[in-house]
């Protein structure tokens, strides 16, 4: 990344964040709802990014985890009246557990095979939902009457007051970005990227690749489950249609086209893929056709996505010699900050 680009980055992000937060003062309800959708898809993209972007696993079934979380919330809320926000961690846990069970036998599969299996998985989930498995999913009619979230006694309805919901989902988005940024720049995040680049070398460096792959699925699914909770409480009515293979493809595209492995990339991807079609309402019916063409073109001309990840910098403390190793030669290692 050039020095000029690096200088602009932080102020640019600040401006974008400010514009985003000020949106409810300028935009009408319909447009706010679009922004809410962008945020939801951004969250889904970020959760998929852990599996697809960092760990490099071809996963086109992310909608399944989204569905598990949404349905968990819907069922428990409509049956026992538990407030939806309380169900946030539970929805995540349900999706995460589901992912661990499902991913366990397929974690060793090679790239394109894994892709096909995830497609099969998400379709089986959808068919199970339609067939009202265990009698609780409401079949193809879905489940309605889900409560909107309420914070300190104030109801935040995504339908009636998208401006209110906007701040709720933005808060969650900000939280997610922070936490995922920390994850990316940690031992865990690095391990995923190592096993993405070269699994043999990663194992040879002491990384239990199978376990980390599973963990990536678990965490990505957990988050998608939580987003499912938010989504269910926003639209108050869910049905199997919302969790089709096509939705998983959209999430996949957001990550790949935006920039796999890059948080800003995924955010941009969500904005473009969900937001742009809204701006060109007249071309609605050509929307998907254009998507397809863009996909092919991107792969040929810019496969790394619009905003691929940049190399990371590290703050290197002085080696106090307590790490083992060759011991420090005082002048060289002290206080060196390494930058790309």
């Amino acid at each position, binding site marked *: 990344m050039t020095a000029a680009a690096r200088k602009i980055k932080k102020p640019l992000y600040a401006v974008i964040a400010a514009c985003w937060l000020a949106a409810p003062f300028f935009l009408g309800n319909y447009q706010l709802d679009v922004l809410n959708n962008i945020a939801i898809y951004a969250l889904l993209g970020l959760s998929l990014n852990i599996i697809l972007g960092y760990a490099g696993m071809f996963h086109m079934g992310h909608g399944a985890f989204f569905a598990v979380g949404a349905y968990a919330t819907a069922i428990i809320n409509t049956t026992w009246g538990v407030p939806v926000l309380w169900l946030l961690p539970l929805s995540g846990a349900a999706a995460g557990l589901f992912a661990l069970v499902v991913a366990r036998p397929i974690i060793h599969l090679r790239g394109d095979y894994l892709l096909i299996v995830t497609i099969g998985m998400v379709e089986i989930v959808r068919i199970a939902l339609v067939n009202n498995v265990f009698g609780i999913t409401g079949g193809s009619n879905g489940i309605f009457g889900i409560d909107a979230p309420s914070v300190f006694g104030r109801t935040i309805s995504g339908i009636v007051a998208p401006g209110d919901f906007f701040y709720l989902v933005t808060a969650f988005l900000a939280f997610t970005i922070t936490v995922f940024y920390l994850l990316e720049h*940690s031992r865990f995040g690095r391990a995923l990227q190592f096993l993405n680049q070269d699994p*043999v070398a990663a194992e040879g460096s*002491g990384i239990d690749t199978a376990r980390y792959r599973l963990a990536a699925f678990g965490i990505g699914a957990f988050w998608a489950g939580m987003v499912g909770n938010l989504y269910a409480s926003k639209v108050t009515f869910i049905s199997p249609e919302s969790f089709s293979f096509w939705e998983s493809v959209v999430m996949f595209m957001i990550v790949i086209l935006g920039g796999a492995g890059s948080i800003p990339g995924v955010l941009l991807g969500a904005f473009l893929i969900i937001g742009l079609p809204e701006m060109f309402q007249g071309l609605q019916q050509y929307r998907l056709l254009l998507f397809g063409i863009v996909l092919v073109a991107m792969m040929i001309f810019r496969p790394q996505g619009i905003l691929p990840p940049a190399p990371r910098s*590290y703050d*290197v*403390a002085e080696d106090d010699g307590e790490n083992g190793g060759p011991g420090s030669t005082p002048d060289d290692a002290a206080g060196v900050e390494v930058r790309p």
Partner: protein
Amino acid sequence: MSLLRIENATRYFGGLMAVGDVSFSVPEGLVFGLIGPNGAGKTTVFNLITGNYRLDSGKIFFRGEDISRMPTHRVVQRGIARTFQNIRLFSGMTVLENVLAGRHCRMKAGPIAAMLRLPSQRIEERRAAARAMAELLFVGLAGHAGNLAKNLSYGNQRLLEIARALAADPALIILDEPAGGMNDYETTALVELISKIRNRGITVMLIEHDMSLVMRACERIVVLEHGKKIAEGTPGEVQADPAVIEAYLGSDDEEF
């Protein structure tokens, strides 16, 4: 005490015997060489030690523990690190990050500690980065820390693999043709580096085709041919061994 003990190791690939009933011990603190003509089974032996391949029969002991069936990542945790014959770096990541990969198994922080930004995690990260820099300094790559691994010269990439292996705090480091693609100047520097590694108390095991390197660096050598051990001893003993001479007759590159 022997650090590594290989007993009757055998491995077939289809009908081909790559390694047949090979036994030897690697004493602690030495530089140990494994040589033989092409196809002798040297890299296969390494892969058997590190768990990349499964033994068909036989056992391997490391510090007295049976590691014959151990998965690779656990062998590394036990204290054996390696480099690869065909360089396997994380080419899209920086030099420093590549060395951090080696540090992985000596760190503890999991995803939750990272997401919560626990102080212990932050301290661990900074110390790991410092240790990684120290290793880069040790092999002579400190100035490249921020570069992408794929932009390094071939010889430097080999050094980076060594730094990565050293960062894992191994008791035994296995170098698979570390001088591949190096010129004479770089090879001499490599001999010095191997000596420095040994002086840190790390046992070194080496596969090499470059005979001058092997004879200069190694203190003890095992010779393989067609998957079988045909000689073992000091460089002098091995050079004089008639079976070894015969095995190398007809190959072009070495001078004794």
